[in-house]
């Protein structure tokens, strides 16, 4: 990062084609994690890669270097992801089952609303993978932001 290499076509393709593709692929991997390869970890990694790519595009220009998601929001997102996981487990306990036993949580109304035929356990898996997705994506972006931050500029 000594000398910024100004190539507008690379930035154009990365910003307008690659980043939306990565976001869509991350959401696809998250939602279809039960029926195809994928899940919360992979979706979180791909989504974090998309955000890091946006950071890398904007790193050389002065206008976009300080924009993007701020650090407190990322910490809140990571805590929210962990909180979804823990609260789902406690919710199962409140309905009279063991910790993280999703079969007791009444989620059938969502299936009837969506016209699907899933079990309660599949729905619980989907919820906790959402939590894992939030946690992994925000923690990876936090690590990258802190590693690439110059301490004498702030």
């Amino acid at each position: 990062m000594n000398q910024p290499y100004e190539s507008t076509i690379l930035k154009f393709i990365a910003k307008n084609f690659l980043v939306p593709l990565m976001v869509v692929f991350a959401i696809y991997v998250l939602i279809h994690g039960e029926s195809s390869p994928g899940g919360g970890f992979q979706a979180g990694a791909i989504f974090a890669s998309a955000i890091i790519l946006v950071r890398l595009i904007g790193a050389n220009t002065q206008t976009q270097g300080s924009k993007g998601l701020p650090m407190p929001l990322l910490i809140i997102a990571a805590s929210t992801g962990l909180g979804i996981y823990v609260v789902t487990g406690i919710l199962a306990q409140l309905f009279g089952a063991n910790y993280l036993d999703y079969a007791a949580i009444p989620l059938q109304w969502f299936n009837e609303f969506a016209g699907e035929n899933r079990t309660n356990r599949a729905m619980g898996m989907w919820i906790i993978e959402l939590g894992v997705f939030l946690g992994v994506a925000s923690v990876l972006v936090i690590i990258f932001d802190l590693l690439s931050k110059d301490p004498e500029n702030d």
Partner: protein
Amino acid sequence: MKWLTFTFLAFILMLLLWATSDLPSRANPQSPANVHLSPEFTKLTETEIHVPNIVSAILADFRGYDTLGETFVIFTAGLAVLLVLSSHGRKKKDPPKK
């Protein structure tokens, strides 16, 4: 000092290669890892959870407590990086050597 490292590494390599001769041959359907516990997981995935991806089912349901701990580990790693690299309180001490 260099020869000591290489001698140690050669010893470790010989030990590990000798240990692999006791392992069951690869892709053996009757090896102990293949007959214990994972057929049950496959059957329970079909009957109880009813999702196609067996790995996802084990990760999020049968070993859900394990995944919870792992999410804690990742969160703790983020907090550790935040604590180590935050520049608050460092400037009051002696400045870094140039």
